[in-house]
């Protein structure tokens, strides 16, 4: 049987690294996905991931233990990712450009490029959302988080969280139209 997050948190605070390892294993993929949506490269996303879990470990004492560990961890993940973005923004263009192949590439590569282009377009549009919209959308689409958790992470009511989710989606649609990416 899987132990509840709060039980593992209590055991971690009591000194059990094994308990914390279980928490890390449980959430590492989710934290990675969110970090990747900011960093757009695997190595850096893994770096952010590591920073998130080290920071979460050090701040476990401030976690209220109210059953919302996932939302609490998501707040740290967004915060660390934004910090990373601020200090590394100028390198992102380099990475993107490096993915661009020469015109003489094979047809399969061209298809990959189109897929990448769509993906990159989506990530760019996510970058243009305000932080709350972005956090709401990444929680919903990368984690299938229920509205209750999203509201908890954003410290708002569920009604407001629903509204933020919709506004985020609408802004992404409008951005797609502005940048001519709408299909």
């Amino acid at each position, binding site marked *: 049987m899987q132990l509840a997050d709060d039980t593992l948190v209590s055991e971690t605070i009591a000194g059990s690294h094994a308990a914390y390892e279980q928490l890390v294993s449980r959430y590492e993929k989710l934290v*990675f996905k969110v970090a990747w949506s900011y960093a757009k490269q*695997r190595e850096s996303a893994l*770096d952010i991931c590591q920073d998130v879990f080290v920071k979460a470990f050090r701040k476990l004492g401030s976690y209220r233990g109210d059953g919302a560990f996932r939302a609490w961890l998501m707040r740290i993940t967004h915060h660390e990712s934004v910090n990373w973005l601020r200090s590394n923004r100028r390198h992102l263009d380099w990475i993107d450009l490096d993915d661009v192949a020469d015109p003489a590439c094979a047809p399969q590569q061209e298809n990959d490029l189109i897929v990448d282009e769509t993906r990159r377009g989506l990530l760019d549009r996510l970058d243009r959302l305000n932080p709350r919209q972005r956090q709401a959308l990444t929680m*919903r689409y990368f984690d299938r988080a229920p509205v209750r958790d999203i509201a908890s992470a954003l410290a708002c009511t569920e009604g407001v969280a629903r509204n933020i989710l919709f506004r985020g989606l609408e802004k992404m649609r409008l951005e797609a139209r502005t940048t001519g990416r709408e299909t």
Partner: protein
Amino acid sequence: MIDCRNCHDLITAYQIGEIEADDLVTLEGHCRDCPDCDALMRTHDELLALDEAVPLPEDREFAQMRDGIFSRIDRPRQARVTGSFWADLKAFLGTHPVAAAPMVAMVLIGAVFLGRWSASSPNYGGDALMQELSRQAAMRQNVTEYLDNPLSYTNVSVRPRGDRLALSFDVMRHVDVETNLDSPLARDVLLATIIDGPSGGQRLRAIQLAPTVGDDSLIEALTFTMHNDPEPAVRLEALDALARHPDLPQVREALLQTLGADPSVQMRLLALDHLVGRQVDPAILQRAITTQRQDGDAALLQRAVQLQRRES
């Protein structure tokens, strides 16, 4: 038929997976006639597909990341182990009081021996360890000796902390220490991180924090990283850092090699930009570009001509 405002409520319900079957039919009907709402639904689908497209690391990479986490938060684990040893010892003495006297005698004899030994042996704790590290760092002439050094550093990382530098590395044992940016130890750990940092982010940060004065070891480390690092961003940062030393012939050679052989067209373009400003013979540039006949040679040759025209 519903209007867009009502449709938005249905889209939100769809977004959070709480839509009723009847409402879904209504929503789909509306979207067939309304391109804006249809585009909203497509954005929703694209976001769902984005989740599927995230390039998740392999289990091995996650395991390495977990190792990194626990090496950074390891102190409490050691403290716990130590605590349980003393607890066990106390329990043992409680149940075997006769054993206490010989054990105390052994500890005392051991302490006397240790005291004599430490008076005549090098001390690798506290300040003495730092002095030994600094001495080793200062003696080092060349970064290629790094691997042969008995005090070579592993598990290295660096972080700026105000106007000082936080170093983290293993050398016989793990060490966390803060030191000045210009200390020999800082320089040494930075070089090791540039070459062998555990992640792209760490190597990138080390290059950014590396001294601006280019001695041979730094140039060697940057050149190695520019040619060999698997992360394009790190290679580009190394190239940028090397280009700050335009007068060194070894930098010029390294840039020519990148121009000729780097798999990334972007790296080759940047190398070309730096080389053209240095009045390199156009024939040498042309030869370097076409050495390996890679994709992008034509574009690079064209750019070389443009840049040279602009320079002249």
